[in-house]
């Protein structure tokens, strides 16, 4: 492990760019973190290459960011995959952008099965639909819930969901 972080990072970039020349990749680096933005249409191909070509064998986290009111933001939803190569210790952040009404991406469960609950949570909170997921439903909120509460346009106190219960009185119980 004589390689320092910058060398490993650029090596990852070179390998992924040479193995997927037709996928537009925007690479950047910040404080030793390698980040790459990939179009949503190629995300599954890219993630598979990350696992098979560069050995990122663990999906640390999969989450989503809503850029609704962020200044200078072009796209609304940003999907973030945090990858780790357990052998080398290298990390890679893969991002892709999504916009309404097409909030559908292929599921990463066929690459890393650990994406199961992470994708369900992203659907639960942001409404991102992952196609090909083996058990696609809400993770935390009740199945009857119809909103996606971590979106920036969702009011903090809800849309009346917490008032939507029958009242049990003494005489009825």
């Amino acid at each position, binding site marked *: 492990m004589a390689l320092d972080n910058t060398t490993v990072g650029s090596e990852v970039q070179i390998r992924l760019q040479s193995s997927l020349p037709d996928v537009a990749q925007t690479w950047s680096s910040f404080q030793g973190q390698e980040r790459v933005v990939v179009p949503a249409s190629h995300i599954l191909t890219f993630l598979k290459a990350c696992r098979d070509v560069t050995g990122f064998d663990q999906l640390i986290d999969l989450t989503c960011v809503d850029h609704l009111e962020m200044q200078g933001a072009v796209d609304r939803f940003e999907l973030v995959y945090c990858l780790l190569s357990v052998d080398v210790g290298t990390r890679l952040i893969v991002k892709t952008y999504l916009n309404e009404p097409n909030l559908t991406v292929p599921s990463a469960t066929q690459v890393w099965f650990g994406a199961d609950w992470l994708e369900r949570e992203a659907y639960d909170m942001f409404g991102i639909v992952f196609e090909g997921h083996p058990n696609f439903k809400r993770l935390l909120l009740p199945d009857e819930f119809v909103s996606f509460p971590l979106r920036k346009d969702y009011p903090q106190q809800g849309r009346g969901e917490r008032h939507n219960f029958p009242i049990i009185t*003494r005489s009825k119980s």
Partner: protein
Amino acid sequence: MASEVKKQLGDNIFLTTLDAAASWARSNSLWPMPFATACCGIELMSTAASRHDLSRFGSEVMRFSPRQCDLMIVAGRVAMKMLPVLQRIWLQMPEPKWCISMGACACSGGVFDTYAVVQGIDRFMPVDVYIPGCPPRPEQLIKAIVDLQEMIKAGGTYNAREFALRDSAEGPARFDEEELIRIRERNGLKLDSPKYDPVH
């Protein structure tokens, strides 16, 4: 004659109503159902443990089956996903039964004024005693149980049917249905979203 009776029986017999005797017995053998969802549950455990020793007040028999309990202690915030469970457990408890709402969150939602937390369980189920505090100290819970015992002794019940008269919600006023519809329309939500039904 009266003096003869008194001489014979002395203080060994006292006259009362069956009602008062039953209430006295009930008040001193409360079986709590610990519905502990948060940090208030730690105080509840502390109250039952040796330092504060809830058994001094005859209510130490915590049971985790609602069928065996007659005092629900709701300790902690109740998420909206949890409320149907809470209501179902309450309905499973046999009568007569009582409820203590312990802590700021169970009473009013506390600091969690968000979409996911019920703003006071008394909006949706009966509550007899409220305990403020975040979390309340064990002494406060003991005081609440002593107060509840006084209530039970004063209330009296032959068959627990005196509750039949209490047929309206006991908490704050029901959140206005019209307001609910207005909020939903303003946010572009469909009105035919499913209703919750904890019983069926």
